[in-house]
């Protein structure tokens, strides 16, 4: 229990540091009262508009005060602020982009795992075979050549030349048209999932190879357990630690990658929105987007922390005692 309180306070600290940092950065130079509102509203705003926004969001208080009111608005009232430029509440403005990025991130992670786990298990089982060596080569290749580098070529070949996939732009939800949805997400997910799965394969294969040499695996054979069951039931669960750690470590990178991929593929995701709102100084949108991103990554890492205990009873018991 104490363990999770500790982890949770770490989460809060990271969250506060990042969101406050973003706020400070975005307001650099906007010190006079009314400055933030005027910046958001643009040059043509009337004094009355400026005053309304300033009063509504306490933009005349000092930065700590502004931060406090912003947090309070988010947590107590679900009010993430207002995009004056779009004349929309930030929540309504962000909602579609969050969905797009969520699909992108979740599909990429899930596919990276779906590709990596069976491959790594098989490679470890057939260690040093031709297939294992080819697998090692390809994972090495995709780790060395960042997919973000060849993404433009992929787009050129498959979108511009062959016209197999659409260049996105239009947001298509699975509930509108499932086929078009997957077609839309295919290439961006490939760009994100392939290098991720290359990392996962390497780590899981190494752990599996080590596990397969342990006594308890030999014992499983000596009991007459067939190889498939030995691999998937006995060996895999004992080999997940590096993989899990790496999922956590790479989540932040995945979010970052998603933001870039959105630019390439012209997807209206959070990255797209973040870049455009940073440029147009739409303060509340920037703050809310970064708050959501950091909270997602840190919360996912908390979840992964829980997973260690689910997988390994020794960790569970050690934590229960602390």
């Amino acid at each position, binding site marked *: 229990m104490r363990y999770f309180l500790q982890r949770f306070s770490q989460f809060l600290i990271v969250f506060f540091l990042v969101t406050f940092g973003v706020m400070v950065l975005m307001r650099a130079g906007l010190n006079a009262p009314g400055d933030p509102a005027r910046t958001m509203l643009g040059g043509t705003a009337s004094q009355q508009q400026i005053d309304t926004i300033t009063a509504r969001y306490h933009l005349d208080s000092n930065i700590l005060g502004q931060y406090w009111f912003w947090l309070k608005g988010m947590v107590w009232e679900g009010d993430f602020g207002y995009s004056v430029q779009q004349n929309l509440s930030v929540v309504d403005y962000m909602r579609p982009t969050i969905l797009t990025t969520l699909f992108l991130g979740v599909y990429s992670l899930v596919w990276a795992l779906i590709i990596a786990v069976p491959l790594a298990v098989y490679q470890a089982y057939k260690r040093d075979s031709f297939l294992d060596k080819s697998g090692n080569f390809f994972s090495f290749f995709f780790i060395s050549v960042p997919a973000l580098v060849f993404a433009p070529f992929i787009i050129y070949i498959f979108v511009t030349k062959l016209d197999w996939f659409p260049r996105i732009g239009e947001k298509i939800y699975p509930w509108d048209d499932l086929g078009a949805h997957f077609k839309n997400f295919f290439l961006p997910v490939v760009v994100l999932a392939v290098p991720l799965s290359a990392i996962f394969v390497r780590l899981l294969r190494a752990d599996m190879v080590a596990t397969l040499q342990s006594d308890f695996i030999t014992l499983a054979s*000596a009991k*007459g357990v067939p*190889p498939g069951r030995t691999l998937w039931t006995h060996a895999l669960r*004992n080999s997940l630690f590096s993989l899990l750690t790496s999922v956590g470590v790479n989540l932040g990178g995945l979010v970052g990658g998603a933001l870039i991929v959105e630019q390439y593929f012209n997807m209206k995701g959070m990255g797209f929105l973040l870049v455009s709102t940073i440029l147009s100084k739409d303060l509340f949108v920037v703050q809310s987007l970064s708050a959501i991103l950091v909270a997602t990554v840190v919360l996912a890492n908390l979840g992964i922390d829980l997973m260690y205990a689910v997988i390994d*009873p*020794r960790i569970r*018991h050690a934590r229960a005692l602390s």
Partner: protein
Amino acid sequence: MSDLIQASARDLSGPLIELTDVKTHFKTARGLVRAVDGVSFTLERGKSLGIVGESGSGKTVLSRSIMGLLPPKAAVRHGSIKFEGREILGLSRSQMRGIWGSEMAMIFQDPMTSLNPVMKIGRQIAEPLRIHLNMARSDAWATAERLLTDVRIPEAARRLNQYPHELSGGMRQRVMIAIALACGPTVLFADEPTTALDVTVQAQILDLLGEQRRDRNMSLILVTHDLGVVAGHTDEIAVMYGGKLVEKAPTRSLFANMKMPYTEALLQSIPKLTDPSHTRLSVINGRPPDLVNPPVGCRFAARCLYTQQRCREEEPPLVVTPEDPEHSYACWYPVGSPAYFEAKARIPSNSTVEVL
């Protein structure tokens, strides 16, 4: 004890295991490691055999060769291993799988690493029951509880739901025994089953093994570096050195009339009760032979106190003693022979011989 887990009625004619010139060599970067180099013996049903030798003499490789549990790659195998009259040396892993756990079972040296750390004890015991005997989950669980009681684990029902790390080393080794006994195997291989345990627990585990062997009419191959361990617990003893069998005899005959100077040296190196529990053998001077380039002649010659010229030139064959046809040894100048006494007289008492 349930009928299911009791060893089934057995045909008592013919040897259970018959090895003929078994060799297991490993291809390594250094060359061919002759870990087991021409071992022959037979084991009768229901009997127990101790395999003794210093660490590195090939005991583990020999027992795993018989079971067919070697790492699939790099091993070159030769000879014949018959189990209940059937040749099993060339069998594939999938052919062996029907035998593993049901006919042959094994207990490993280190109970700390031999159980799956993330699987409940109960499931680990139930697994072979479900695989070989097609037991339903609940039946297998009930049988597992009975097995834990058989190996004297208190509060068996509660233990089933525990994980290995919640048990002491001795308890874990009992769990290993319960797993091995689960399907009523014909022969049990115990590879240094007590080496990793406290002295006080060692005797309990050995007694448990002996008792279960008698109750279940099961053969036992007990592998150890400690002649003292097998002395009271096996019918026969085979002594290994450098991948070869150098002496084999019924236990009583071996102790009454030991022939190999190596066996004699092993006897003198039995750890005293006063030693710490993990002391390595240190009494025999010198190191075991190089298994890549084994010496010509007797492999023990370089370290033997009674070595003669012939020992370094000609390899002694395994011969039977005149007193006991079941007692064989491989030595030109065995303990008790004139040459042995002659050599012994030359050695000042209390001295050690330099290693060549």
